[in-house]
């Protein structure tokens, strides 16, 4: 049996610690708002992961976590290769636009149609991911700035597309025509949004893990991410690796957008995105840029959002902003990990030091 390494244990402990601290601090605010924190968290848990009611909250949470898992995975690839690209939002939006457009424009047998739409969205997302990568590799443009700009461009293109070329005539709002029912991605439970896209997302998570840790390409990717110069010294070409990885990252974010359209919205309108691409960044950061971490954090974040922002205000009349405070607090404590990380390390050593000696005996 391989022993869990210290780094791995710590990458699990840090988010856990942040979550607990976030909950503690938010409790104070909830108390000040005149509600018992105990019943608040009861509601939060049942609102996020409960298994009662017509459509289980747990399933809704899983459904909402699906695009988060994918955008988180996309951000993870980018971080792993050492590029802080935050264009997932733009890639997600472009994937969605492509899906809404081809979903209406093409006329193919349903199964083929879905595959073509998904593939096209992935390519479009990937190309959109290549832009900041290319700018960085060839011209040395800071990827953070270029990807922020690309996100704004995507948002404006979306607004234009739904207001003019894609606009449905009968619709009340600026939105595209509803897709043919035959190409909707199936949901396991009607109204939960939890469906085949979740399975695809989890499959991609497993594949990503294998790719990054079990293949030569993945090794190169990690090496470039940790030290591009050393990688070059070792004979790994950093630039192509960065370009490939960001293309991959963009493909995943594009797929997320496309599956949201085919699976949930069935059409596209302004404001549909809700910053899911940005949430992917927090997911990847909180998940310590590890596929498993991404899945856990995505589900947790979707749950908190569901339970805190809707559950709390529906059941206890707690202002919805407090749910946002909880999420913000958790992210804050992750960002401030250096403050308490040394203590966690000491704690870990204390627990494991005697055990180590036993192992050697």
């Amino acid at each position, binding site marked *: 049996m391989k022993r869990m390494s210290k780094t791995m244990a710590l990458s699990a402990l840090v988010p856990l610690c942040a979550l607990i601290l976030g909950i503690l601090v938010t409790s104070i605010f909830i108390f000040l708002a005149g509600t018992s924190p105990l019943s608040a968290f009861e509601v939060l848990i049942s609102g996020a992961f409960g298994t009662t009611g017509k459509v289980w909250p747990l399933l809704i949470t899983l459904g909402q976590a699906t695009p988060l898992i994918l955008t988180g995975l996309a951000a993870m690839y980018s971080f792993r290769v050492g590029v802080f690209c935050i264009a997932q939002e733009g890639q997600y939006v472009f994937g969605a636009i492509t899906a809404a457009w081809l979903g209406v424009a093409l006329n193919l047998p349903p199964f083929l149609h879905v595959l073509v739409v998904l593939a096209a969205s992935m390519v479009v997302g990937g190309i959109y991911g290549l832009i900041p990568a290319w700018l960085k590799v060839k011209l040395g443009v800071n990827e953070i700035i270029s990807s922020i700009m690309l996100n704004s461009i995507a948002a404006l293109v979306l607004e234009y597309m739904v207001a003019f070329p894609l606009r449905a005539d009968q619709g*009340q709002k600026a939105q595209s025509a509803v897709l043919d029912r035959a190409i909707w991605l199936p949901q396991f439970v009607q109204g939960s949004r939890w469906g085949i896209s979740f399975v695809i997302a989890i499959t991609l998570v497993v594949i990503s893990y294998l790719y990054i840790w079990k293949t030569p390409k993945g090794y190169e990717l990690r090496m470039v991410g940790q030290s591009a110069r050393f990688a070059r010294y070792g004979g790994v070409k950093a630039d192509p690796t960065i370009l490939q990885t960001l293309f991959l990252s963009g493909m995943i974010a594009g797929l997320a957008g496309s599956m949201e359209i085919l699976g949930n919205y069935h059409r596209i309108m302004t404001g549909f995105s809700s910053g899911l691409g940005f949430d992917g960044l927090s997911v990847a950061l909180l998940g310590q840029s590890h596929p498993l971490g991404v899945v856990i954090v995505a589900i947790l974040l979707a749950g908190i959002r569901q339970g805190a922002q809707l559950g709390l205000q529906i059941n206890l009349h707690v202002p919805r902003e407090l749910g946002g405070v909880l999420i913000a607090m958790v992210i804050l404590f992750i960002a401030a990990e250096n403050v308490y990380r040394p203590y966690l390390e000491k704690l870990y050593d204390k627990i494991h030091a005697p055990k180590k000696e036993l192992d050697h005996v």
Partner: protein
Amino acid sequence: MNKKLLSVVLLLFVVVGVAFSAGASEKATQTDKITVAVVMPSPLGDRSFVDSAAKGVERANAELPVQVDIIETQGVHEHETAMRSAINRGYDLILGVGLDTQMMLDLANENPDQTFGSPSELYADNLPDNLASLLINVNKSSFLAGIAAGMLTETNKVAAVCGGDAPGLNQFFYGFKQGVLEVNPDAEVFVNYLGFDFSNPTLGKESAIALYDEGCDIIYQVAGLSGEGVLAAAAERGLYAIGVDNVQDSFYPGNIITSVIKRVDNSTYDLINEYVNGTYKGGFRSLDLEDGATGLSWDVGATDFADNGPASMTAKLPEVQKTIADYRARILSGDYEVYDALTMDLWDSLK
């Protein structure tokens, strides 16, 4: 150092412990009253559409034997989840204020045992029995505001800042445009759509400033909280704006000529009241000028502009009000037709 951290953590635990024990005794109160959920399209605090609906909720809670909960949402992407959460919770009646028509129809068809309602902006020919829609037509009241703008403009350029390009919002805009052109055929009427961002005053302000720079002197805002930016821009530039939904004349007295009021508070209250009295009926009904559901702030006695506006403009007010009264009479008698973006194809004269 270590001790310091420990003490901080301990303190935190103590505070939270106290909080937990203090709050533990109070439980969420269960009532036998009829329960109603009102799902809002954006957060409270816009001093316009959403707050107006909330006023209706407040009145229902005070006057009727009901427990009405408000569910705020952040935007389009949260509407469906919020509606579904409300359905899961098992409310007797769920009202969606200004939400997407198709979504409301789908939910109503999917949940035939649940009663739904929409106090505003849901327009469809056929509604299922469990979905009632009260629609307040604002084209005629906007037309009256357009008359005021058309007569008072000095640059012959007026504009509207609209939350989005949708028939429900164009009903405001084209009514207004028709009014302006009716009394001032030479005037130019601009429009700026905000891409359905109803909670961004900065965006509203920027759009308004761009229009003022274009030479417009009166801007009609139809943009919820974003519209507050339009009103602020008017005050900043010393120019003029027209408010919407609520009586907004007093926000910047002297800069806001009038407001087109849309009594979403009444329609919200009416739907709840009908449900309580057992007279609730699915289907589509529209309310208008003659029902008192919409009109100008002048009708309800707002005099902020008359008292604080510049003399050159207030001098014209009696004449403006007389013209408006004439047109109102003609509209009500059916003698004059105002374009309705919800039901008609765009007239050539308004293109």
